[in-house]
């Protein structure tokens, strides 16, 4: 029966449901204008001579360090896995240190000190036309066993200088 009260309550319920579900959906945009990290970091040949344990800070502003590990090159995220602060490379202690709450990560990105719960993320690295490309759209997490993925590291021959 289409009473005035019935119509009123139906309208209120429908409107209320649309509002309660619709407003949070509105607040999550489908398209964002955030810059992508897709950086050409140089020729692969150039990295062959880099000595072990080198941390390249040239791309820190773009969110990663290029680190020469024994197995090859990795692009480590500069973001602390605790609560997102920007890390600093401490040459003397050989650790990436967080100024916010004191976390420390070793050269490979493994969390060693402080409240960080997991290792640093490694950005996807590929080689195209002899040039190394770092792609921030895909990241690999050590604690999920993703560091075995071929695109988490650029394999290099063991360096002549150790």
């Amino acid at each position, binding site marked *: 029966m289409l009473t005035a009260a019935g119509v009123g309550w139906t309208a209120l319920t429908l409107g209320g449901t649309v509002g309660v579900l619709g407003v949070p959906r509105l*607040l*999550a*945009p489908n398209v*964002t204008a*955030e810059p992508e990290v897709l950086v050409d970091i140089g020729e692969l040949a150039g990295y062959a001579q880099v000595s072990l344990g080198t941390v390249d800070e040239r791309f820190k502003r773009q969110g990663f360090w290029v680190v020469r590990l024994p197995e090859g090159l990795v692009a480590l995220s500069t973001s602390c896995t605790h*609560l997102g*602060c*920007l890390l600093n490379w401490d040459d003397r202690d050989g650790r990436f240190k967080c100024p*916010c709450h004191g976390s420390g990560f070793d050269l490979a990105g493994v969390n060693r000190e402080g409240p960080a719960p997991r290792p640093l993320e490694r950005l996807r690295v590929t080689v195209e036309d002899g040039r190394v490309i770092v792609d921030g759209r895909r990241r690999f997490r050590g604690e999920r066993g993703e560091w075995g993925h071929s695109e988490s590291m650029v394999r290099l021959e063991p360096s002549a200088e150790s």
Partner: protein
Amino acid sequence: MMGMLRRLGESIRASQLWRSVFRQGIPRDRRSRVLAVMGNVFLHLHPPELRRSGVRLSFTWCLGGLTFFLFLVEAVTGILLMFYYRPVAEYAYHDMVGLRGHVSFGLLREIHRWGAHLMVITCWLHLLRVFLTGSYRPPREFNWVVGVCLLVLTMLMSFTGYLLPWDQLALWAVTVGTNMAAAAPWLGSEGPGSSLLAVEGIPLVHPGSDVRFALLGGVAVGPAALMRFYVLHCVALPVLAGVLMAVHFWRIRRDGGISGPL
């Protein structure tokens, strides 16, 4: 000379214009005093009469009133700041610095910030006072809940306002705060239980769709977050706080006025 002025005053006060604005004259007895308070939209927030114990400073320390007063200070200084501040990443920091140097009475930004800190302090002290004097006891339990909601809104206004100067302090404070939101159960992509919410192996809660994403309007603390926090700080949260304050004050009046000793 004095006679002429007095007659002028009388004729103004007898005019239709005057009488339409001021319904009664200066209150001179109890009845007209009550009418003057009850007939004014701003004054009728207050009761026309109080128990004597209601003005005893050492009972309430005026903390609730101070918090409301600071809210008004923040609203006024905030609106004035809005004439010069642009919530855009390229301009935000420079506009904020400019408010100190390029504008006369350039203390507004400082007053706004200090007022915010003070308001948070008086809000907590008010909570402490209400708790320690047992003023949450029946029938006032619901008003306590409304008060706690107001406290949460005050803290949220503090958090959203913190980002607006767009300096290092702001950026990293909000980074840390929103990453904590990401650690919330189910709603946060880094929290427990979020991986359980998946359809056919496709996660429903991931960094591009969790509560942190909704808070920031993106994955990073960037221009979208600044805009969002600005709207929350200047419009959404004050409106909500205003509504809840109306409920809060109404409840106090309805439950017999400012609570005094039993």
